[in-house]
């Protein structure tokens, strides 16, 4: 097939690419990769990082999840754009997409891996602070509409939303309720996002993620 995506079901980064392809109604072949046994095709297509997701379009590889999302937006121009049209709004969307990967997700990982109560508390606070920032960003970016991108799911929705499965998993792990009444707009957005057609079949199940992450953390600790 002309469009192929190499991904892994637990990966929020792969989820981004899948949502974007779904939003644009692109027909694609999906190849599940096992990070412990990477395919020749993956290693050949992403020699620099050897990671998923990788999008192959007419055999040409595109790597890095948000670069893939931008590419999808720029190639399949039927239907709504994933980014706003105003350059400043685009810069804001890109900024928060950068922040979620650069600062917020590492804090979530810290929270999961923290060995002491103090470390856990610190990491949890960072996660919650980040969620508050997203709440404010949602208010500004959505301009009263349903999604960060306005009426339609877009670049920033995908950038942040891909982590919702992991957020729910973190709730299961910790007994917390990370998206709560302190971030009402974000909580409501999260439900809309996960229920949407483009997202619901590719967002990993939190219980399944919990099992997977437990196994992974145990394997890492054993090394």
């Amino acid at each position, binding site marked *: 097939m002309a469009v192929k995506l190499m991904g892994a079901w637990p990966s929020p980064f792969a989820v981004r690419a899948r949502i974007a392809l779904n939003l644009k109604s692109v027909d694609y072949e999906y190849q599940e990769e096992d990070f412990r046994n990477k395919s020749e095709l993956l290693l050949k297509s992403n020699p*620099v990082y050897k990671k998923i997701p990788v999008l192959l379009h007419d055999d*040409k590889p*595109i*790597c*890095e999840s948000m670069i893939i999302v*931008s590419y999808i937006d*720029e190639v399949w121009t039927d239907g709504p754009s994933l980014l706003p049209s105003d350059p*400043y709004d*685009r810069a804001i969307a*890109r900024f928060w997409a950068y922040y979620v990967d650069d600062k917020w997700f590492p804090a979530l990982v810290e929270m999961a891996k923290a060995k002491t109560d103090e470390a856990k508390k610190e990491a949890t606070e960072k996660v919650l602070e980040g969620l508050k920032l997203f709440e404010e960003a949602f208010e500004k970016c959505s301009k009263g509409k349903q999604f960060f991108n306005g009426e339609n799911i877009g670049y920033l929705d995908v950038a942040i939303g891909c982590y919702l499965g992991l957020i729910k998993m973190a709730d299961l792990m910790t007994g917390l309720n990370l998206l709560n009444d302190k971030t009402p707009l974000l909580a409501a957005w999260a439900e809309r996002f996960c229920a949407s057609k483009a997202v619901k079949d590719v967002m990993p199940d939190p219980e399944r993620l919990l099992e997977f992450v437990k196994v992974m953390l145990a394997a890492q600790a054993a090394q």
Partner: protein
Amino acid sequence: MEGVKLLDFWVSPFGLRVRIALAEKGVEFEYKEENLAEKSELLVSANPVYKKIPVLIHDGKPVCESLIIVQYIDEAWSDKGPALLPKDPYQRAQARFWADFVDKKMYECGTRVWKSKGEAKEEAKKEFIDNMKLLEATLGDKPFFGGDVFGYMDISLIPFACWFYSYETEGSFSIEEACPKILEWVKRCKERESVSKFLPDPHKVHEFVLFLKKRFGIE
């Protein structure tokens, strides 16, 4: 507060990207040198999340993160000067990928080259050269990373050229020996006014590195 203002620090490769991009587009701007040891209220309010330079303030609205700023400049002044990103989506994805690679690998690894000692230093050097060789292979025989035209990917990397002398001196190795094509590319980039106007003297950069080493108590 109309106009274009750049909050920056003279030696920052990230800030340099923005200065070069603005110059390529022929955009007039006010340059404000920040004292990173004592950040201005303006910087902290313009970039509350990271409190870092560069920040571009356009008609009072701040844009942060150097590569995001460069894309913003390309889009906000799309009717001025050359396009910084290629038109073709696949070429754009390639430009973004390699600029992101520079972001992930260049600064952090280069810093380790001058900051660390002994085995850590040797490891950093090896990694640095491997990264440079990969970039050189990507450049190939093209005049610029994007092909015939100077653009986004070149802008993301060229600021580091003024740091090469520091990395080489502190690391005791030659980038020219390892990657001659990169040095040729640097010469080609320096022929552009936007680059030659802003790139600081490599010896001044090294003086700054020596100052930092003293400050951090590194031999």
